């Protein structure tokens, strides 16, 4: 199984979970059907024309119907965003396999899960709505609830215990490490350049190679650069995790982010940045580190609020080997690879586990707050949205591309604060993909259907799709694809003592042949040729000898194998030299027939056989045979 991400957009259908009682949210009117029937008004609330489920947020799980997840042997994780559904798989499906991921992926993935669990568990909600999920009722609901798919499979968030148990099933791997899977294939993670520890995977047998490219980046940010060279010579390249905002250039967006941040703060407003606790935030802090002095923001406090803020900032500094070269070299100076260490030291950046406690004492405005969750449905961000939403001086800047910012903001309407959408998605865009594919040249590309056509909103942008030859094979949800290659060969090893006994003969320059008699031994998808057991010693008893001869096929003296071709003209000359006359050659579809009319003999020469047909003249046949054999090689 390649990755197991969690679709969190389902949470956008739910009301936000406020950290402190919000009169506004609790006083939202219940929703009633057009006919006035209000039986759902406890479950559904209406806010500015949108309907939300008033319940603990639920998540949409990976597909479980199509495949029995207990039969999955291995899960390969490509980055920490793509493992958020892991506890659902490992703890509730009978999964007994192994999960492979790099160390930073596991550590930061744990932080993300921990934050998620914390956000949801610290504001327990008594009510759990399920009535609306009834298919007959769902049909009556307004969009987007009406169109939500598989609502019956939506699940509440997992617990920390499940997280720990799931993570314990992960086997840590390093870049370029080769991992044998049951002898059948070898998998190797490669740096994908997108996040700390993010990987692409190569799955290869001796003669086939499949690359799984997911969430990769060619930009120079903090992680180790993408390893492209190792992706070459792939039979199939499975491509996914491209940028979600192909029209937004990350550099421009970072500039936009900084400009809007400074503009707001200079005008006396606060800035709220809903974000994940790891990833782009490191780059943003680095940009701000360079920018704040020049923008005259040195006195503005930056707050990073997350239950895992401290761990995230500290973890980032210790994964030196997973960082880009520049940052790696800093470690040897020794300096912290990320400049946010200095921001913390100089008190420009302060981090807190939550708004409760120290934060409320230190809180100073105007300020900039980085906090989760980007969906605006849970986490400390809900508090700041409620707090700052009423003033147009304040600004919320969306940098995470995973959620539609308009949908995220829907339950906060009407909203006075400014909203800026600066999605920073460093993953591959289509120009980079075509460059990558040109460089790597896979025989086939397999990708989601969405990548093979321009985005629906910009149907004229033919540049916003994958353009490769042969055209990419596309798939959609629940499609079953047969990958376009067949396994034709298996590699077989020869034991050294058997190899010693072989006597190769060169039949063409550079090509030698040898006959082999051996026993093929197959175990764990590995094939080994072993020397045949020796025939029993003559000294042993008769019975034993018999048994042995039963087990082992008789190694008869074999006739030599012949190879080569017979040049007809020379053959005829040779025949004439040896006294044959009256020779006639006829061409046939498959070769030639040499007629020795005098001897009433016929030699039929074809590509892979030669027949000598003569009437009961064995002497003649043997003579002719020897003449034929002169032209052929034997071994």
């Amino acid at each position, binding site marked *: 199984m390649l990755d197991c991400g969690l679709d969190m957009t389902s949470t956008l259908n739910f009301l936000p979970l406020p950290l402190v009682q919000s009169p506004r949210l609790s006083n939202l009117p219940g929703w009633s059907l057009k006919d006035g029937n209000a039986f759902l008004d406890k479950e559904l609330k209406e806010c500015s024309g949108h309907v939300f489920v008033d319940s603990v947020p639920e998540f949409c799980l990976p597909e479980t119907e199509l495949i029995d997840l207990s039969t999955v042997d291995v899960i390969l994780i490509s980055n920490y965003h793509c493992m958020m559904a892991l506890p659902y798989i490992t703890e509730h499906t009978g999964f007994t396999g192994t999960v492979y991921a790099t160390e930073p992926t596991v550590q930061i993935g744990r932080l993300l899960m921990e934050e998620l669990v914390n956000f949801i568990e610290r504001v327990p909600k008594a009510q759990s709505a399920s009535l609306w999920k009834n298919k007959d009722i769902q049909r009556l609901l307004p969009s987007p609830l009406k169109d939500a798919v598989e609502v019956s499979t939506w699940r509440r968030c997992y617990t920390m215990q499940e997280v720990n148990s799931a993570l314990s099933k992960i086997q840590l791997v390093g870049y370029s490490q080769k991992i044998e899977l049951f002898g059948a294939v070898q998998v190797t993670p490669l740096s994908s350049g997108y996040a700390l520890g993010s990987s692409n995977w190569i799955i290869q047998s001796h003669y086939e190679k499949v690359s799984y490219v997911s969430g990769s980046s060619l930009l120079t940010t903090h992680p180790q650069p993408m390893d492209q060279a190792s992706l070459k010579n792939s039979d199939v390249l499975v491509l996914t995790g491209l940028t979600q905002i192909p029209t937004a*250039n990350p550099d*421009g967006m970072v*500039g936009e982010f900084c400009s809007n941040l400074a*503009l707001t703060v*200079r005008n006396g407003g606060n800035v709220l940045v809903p974000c994940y606790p790891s990833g782009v935030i490191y780059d943003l802090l680095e940009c701000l580190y360079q920018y704040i002095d020049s*923008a*005259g923001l040195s006195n503005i406090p930056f707050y990073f609020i997350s239950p895992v803020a401290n761990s995230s900032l500290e973890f980032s500094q210790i994964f030196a080997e997973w960082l880009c070269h520049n940052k790696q070299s800093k470690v040897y100076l020794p300096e912290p690879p990320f400049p946010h260490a200095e921001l913390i030291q100089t008190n420009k950046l302060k981090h807190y586990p939550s708004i409760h406690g120290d934060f409320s004492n230190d809180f100073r405005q105007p300020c900039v707050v980085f906090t989760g969750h980007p969906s605006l449905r849970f986490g400390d961000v809900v508090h700041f949205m409620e707090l700052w939403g009423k003033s147009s001086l304040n600004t919320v800047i969306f940098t995470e591309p995973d959620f539609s910012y308009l949908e995220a903001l829907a339950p906060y309407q009407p909203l006075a604060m400014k909203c800026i959408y600066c999605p920073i998605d460093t993953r591959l865009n289509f120009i980079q993909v075509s460059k990558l594919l040109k460089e790597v040249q896979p025989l086939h590309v397999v990708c989601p259907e969405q990548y093979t056509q321009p985005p629906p909103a910009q149907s*004229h*942008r033919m*540049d916003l799709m994958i353009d490769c030859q042969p055209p990419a094979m596309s798939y959609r949800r629940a499609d079953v694809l047969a990958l376009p290659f067949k396994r034709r060969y298996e590699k077989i090893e020869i034991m050294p003592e058997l190899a010693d006994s072989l006597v190769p003969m060169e039949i063409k320059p550079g090509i030698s042949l040898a006959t082999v008699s051996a026993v093929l031994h197959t175990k764990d998808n590995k094939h080994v040729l072993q020397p045949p057991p020796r025939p029993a010693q003559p000294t042993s008893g008769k019975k034993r000898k018999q048994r042995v001869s039963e087990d082992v096929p008789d190694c008869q003296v074999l006739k030599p194998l012949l190879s080569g071709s017979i040049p007809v003209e020379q053959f005829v000359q040779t025949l004439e030299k040896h006294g044959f006359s009256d020779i006639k050659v006829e061409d046939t579809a498959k070769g030639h027939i040499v007629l020795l009319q005098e001897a009433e003999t016929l030699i039929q020469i074809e590509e892979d056989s030669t027949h000598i047909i003569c009437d009961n003249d064995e002497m003649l046949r043997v003579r002719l045979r020897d003449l034929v054999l002169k032209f052929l090689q034997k071994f």
Partner: protein
Amino acid sequence: MDGQTRLGMLHRLLVLFWPPPQTESVILSPLSFSIYRGHKIQHSDWHKEPLRIMDPECSRLLPALCAVLADPRQPVADDTCLEKLLDWFKKVTEAESSLLLLQENPCLVELLSHVLRPQDVSPRVLSFSLRLAGTFAAQEDCFQYLQQGDLLLGLFGEAGTLGWAAWNVPTVRSGWIQGLSSLAQHPSALHFLADSGAVDTVFSLQGDPSLFVASAASQLLVHILALSMHGEAVEHHSPQGSAWPTCAQKIVGHVEESLRSTAAPQVTQALNVLTTTFGRCHSPWTEVLWEQLSPLVACLLERDPIPAGHSLVDLLLSVARSPVFSSADCGLWETVAQTLSRLSPTQAGPLALGTLKLQHCPQALRTQAFGILLQPLACVLKATTQAPTSPGLLDGTLGGSMTVDALLSSKSACAGLLCQTLAQLEELHPLPHRPSPWPQASLLEAVVTILQLCDGSAAPGSSVGGRLCGTLAGCVRVQRAALDFLGTLSQGTSPQELVPQVFAVLLEYLESPDSSPTVLKKAFQATLGWLLSSPKTPGCSDFGPHIPLFLGELFPVLQKRLCSPCWEVRDSALEFFTNLSRHWGEAPTLTQQLLRDPESYVRASAVTAMAQLSSQGLHATLASPEHPEAEQGLLREFLNILSADSEGFPRRAVVQVFTQWLRDGHAEVARDTEQFVATVLQVVSQDLDWEVRVQGLELAQVFLTQKLGQPGHCPYTVALPEAPLPRLRPEVLRTLCQPWLLEFAFRALFDCDRPVAQKACNLLLFLRDKTAPYAGTQETGDSPHLDSMEAALQRWQAGEQGQPLGDPEPEAMLAVLRSLDLEGLQGRLAESSDHVEKSPQSLLQDMLATVDILEENEADCY
């Protein structure tokens, strides 16, 4: 030793040994510093007189120099010396007889003879000698003189240089060609060229691997052709080519042969020779030449692909521009028309533009050329299914498919063609004889569409449009060219309904986070163009009806851009805003903060912007509770920048602003002008940046002008009948002679940067002239003030800047002013600082000295 002698010695020492600290600095010698009561003592200023071109001293040095050049063991380290030497010889031979020069300096002929032994000479000296020989032989008598000894044949003939190993060095081949070019000035040279076989060598050098040599060879051929035709009867009667001189026939024959060649490089060479010929020679024979060769040129058009398209375009334009063809109907226009239709759009563009720039070209051809120029834009419009508003101009179908192919063939081809087209139309736009009617509306539509294609906001209506969209998306080159052209189009009458579209696309670019800093700058420039050219409507606003709405949307964008992390963006936004605020009164609140921007350019722009706002009375609106310093006066803020900013740009901007304020009588200044000027000059005098000091002098000049009136010696003022000069009031005089003003000016007079000293000199001259009538009535006697001033000035000149001037009487000041030889100083300052080093004598000495040093070093090694 009295003071004068001491100073005189110092003067000479400085002249001889003072190495100029930088190219623009002055040698501290020029002030003839001898202040004696009531009279001036001039120093001998030998270096002011023009040096004799070949003075005896140079003549004396020449043999040694020739010996050095001829000696292979003494390599000339610096070949710029050889260039300078050659320049000098050229100057000498222009003024004097070369023959005389050679006869008086036999060492020169010896040098030339010496290089005939090639193994002994470095390629550098060989090349120099070839060029030198050519320079001498340019005069016919000298040519004959050199010919006597077969020297020229040895140098330029087939038996000479060509056979030497050094011929492989491009410098030598280049020297050979340049030498020949120089000597080919008279009939004797022509015979020499014909007899020596040099012309054939020049033919082969046209294909030389060194581009310089190849180009020089082409030029030489044209030169020889022109020379051989010069003075002949053919020049005036233009007989057929068969009656031309042999040499000319030979060259024309070679060109004809090259034109028939199937090898593109040869065709290019021939076309280049012809292009130069028609560009330089405007005698009637060129018409004959064209008649003879034009069929061959026309034949080139029948080949596929057309060889040397660019050279062909150059040739046709060169012929078309020649006055010889202005009235003649020689089939040229047919050839141009045919070429236009046959060449690829990229190659046809320059020809079309060139044709349209011609004054006397037939209307049909102009229409065709303009059609070709517009073709790419027509394709863009067609691909986006926007019907052009003025049909017939942008909907041409001729060659359309070729243009579409060119646009779609590759990203770089598409961008190249569009950029070229936009630049060409931009060039055409301001011309008085541009095509008429000028399709302003269609051009606007096209350029707006291109900009939309580039930012992905266009809605293409065809597959071609879709591909264009993909190709152009994010193409910065095209964006820049289109914005430039859009800005140019603002200078014209545009249909009102299109103006909102223009503003919309400009706003898109100004807003877009993906606009690169350079694109943004161009967008700002274009926006300003459109804002300022927008038709004025009578009423409250200075601008047309679209403008207030646009500005309303623009302002938040501008605010955001002022906060950009990229300093180039902040700078262009400020610059735009400064220009805009001259016409429109709103101030982004952030401008003042940018006075403290980390980037000096931005701070400088912020100074200008703030000054602009202040002049418009808008500064007060910027005061906000967060920034109380705004209320404390911009003047203090600026003075702070002037005295404390670590970079020159903001400080220069501040002084410029102050000068402008003084000129305009700005309120901050008018309150106490003297105090203001005194404070500023005090700060400026300490500044390390010479431009700031020059600006400070400008400020002082404005101050003085305001007190005393315009300078009287302006060459452009009409001389009015002399009116009796008004007497200067004593208080004015006292103001003018304030120590802070004169001390600043006097110190600047000794400034080590020449522009500062020059400016100070002019300022003091102005002051002296203006106060002269007053001073004439006063008797300047001895006074302790005068003594101390002289002492101070002497110390300043000696580099001791510490001592102040004290507080002398105005009369003493004026006396000092009059005692200085300011005119002399002005003259000397006008000379460049290396005028002494530029003399030929110095050059010869330098070259010899270098060798001496090399020798010494050599000796040291052993």
